């Protein structure tokens, strides 16, 4: 199980709007996600899940609205603060194909100034099941292996906030089970998790809250078990 210090970081999104020309990707989205919460984002393709996650990560600047991190002392720092606190797994793997698995992790560990990087990288490679392929270039990896490495990259600095955009992409059922086990460990250790999902799976069982986006707006937000399942099932049905 991936090790993590218990130091979850919550996030507050206030009146977030994102416009591309005349098209609204997000309209007046406000969400407050408490430290240690595990939230599933559901919704059809184009509903704004990816945009919301990229704004939360600090990768995309909202047209208007505020992003703040939350801890026990209250809110602090938008953009750079989010970037510094969040681990992000996107649609793309965010890995260099010409570099080996170990070189990819080493590069990002250096950029993030991860303490005891060698030990951390060795442990992560073992935990994501890529220890034997540590010296292989990423371009020789299957989609599932790349996804595992992408998750290891996101966990390099023990983030307090983990943002995952359809993290089970490319994983087979056993891979999805493995990921669910990893995320369960992180959630139990206090890490805040926000993940976009398509339908119910081993991952959706981890969520204690589900938010459904529809045409860039929050259409439903619940912590109730039955409603939560309904929201995730709704996403699957479309």
């Amino acid at each position, binding site marked *: 199980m991936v090790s993590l210090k218990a130091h979850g970081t919550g996030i507050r999104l206030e009146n977030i709007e994102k416009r591309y020309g005349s098209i609204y990707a997000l309209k007046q989205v406000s969400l407050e996600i408490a430290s240690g919460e595990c939230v599933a984002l559901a919704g059809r393709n184009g509903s704004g899940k990816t945009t919301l996650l*990229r704004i939360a*990560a*600090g*990768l*995309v*600047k909202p047209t208007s609205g505020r992003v703040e991190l939350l801890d026990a002392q209250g809110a602090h720092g938008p953009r*750079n603060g989010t*970037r*510094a606190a*969040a681990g*992000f797994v*996107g*649609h*793309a*793997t*965010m*890995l*260099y*194909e*010409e*570099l080996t698995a170990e*070189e990819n992790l080493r*590069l*990002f560990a*250096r*950029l*993030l*100034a991860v303490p005891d990087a060698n030990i951390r990288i060795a442990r992560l490679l073992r935990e994501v099941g890529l220890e034997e392929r540590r010296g292989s*270039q990423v371009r020789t990896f299957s989609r599932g292996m790349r996804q595992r490495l992408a998750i290891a*990259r996101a966990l390099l600095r023990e983030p307090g906030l983990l943002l995952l955009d359809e993290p089970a992409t490319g994983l087979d059922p056993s891979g999805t089970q493995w990921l669910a086990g990893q995320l369960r460990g992180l959630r139990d250790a206090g890490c805040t998790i926000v993940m976009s999902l398509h339908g119910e799976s081993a991952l959706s069982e981890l969520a204690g809250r589900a938010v459904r986006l529809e045409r860039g707006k929050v259409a439903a937000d619940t912590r109730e078990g039955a409603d939560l399942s309904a929201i995730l099932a709704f996403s699957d049905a479309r």
Partner: protein
Amino acid sequence: MNLLANTSALLGKELRTEFRSRELLTTTIVFVLLVVVLFSFTFDPSATESRRFGPGLLWLAFLFAASLMLQSCFLREQNNDTLGALRLAVADPFAIFLAKLSANTLFLFLTELLMIPVFTVLYNVPLLAVLPQLALVLFLGSFGLAVTGTALSAVSAQARMRELMLPLLLLPLLTPLLIASTEATAALFDVKPALRWDWVAILAAFDVVFLTAVWLFGEYLLEE
């Protein structure tokens, strides 16, 4: 300190990926070599003509090769959204530019140095005596090409018609650099070669101005 550490890590990545893929360096060297060789075969210039037209020919070849090379500079960071990963990881986005422009300068400078003996043989212009001065002009010119091209490559990578966008933005902007580097090189190609410090100063000023602009506005160029 953090900026330098990040830049050195990213420069190492640039060199390692290029060493493995050999995309940029091979393309650039072959392109410049073709231009220099074809021009020589087509016009068969005398030594006097070579001294007169050679500098312009060389710098035009370097300029077009650079625009070809710089095209993929940020484009290949978009394939797997690695640029996003870098933006999340570095505290100062200038480190991304600094690493890329250092690598691009190095690749261009290396190409230019390799072309000097080829040019000397094909165009019958002995350059060994002025090699250090020529290297200075080539370096300042390469740096100017790289700093401007790297910044514009970040812009064009996010635009439609990106293949056309970079040369369209880059070539007019580089006119002062092209004039200064050609004039400085022409003075070194002369029968009585001399290093023209006025043109060298213009080259250095161009480099400093554009490096400062990238330092100030680089972060905005990387935004989605």
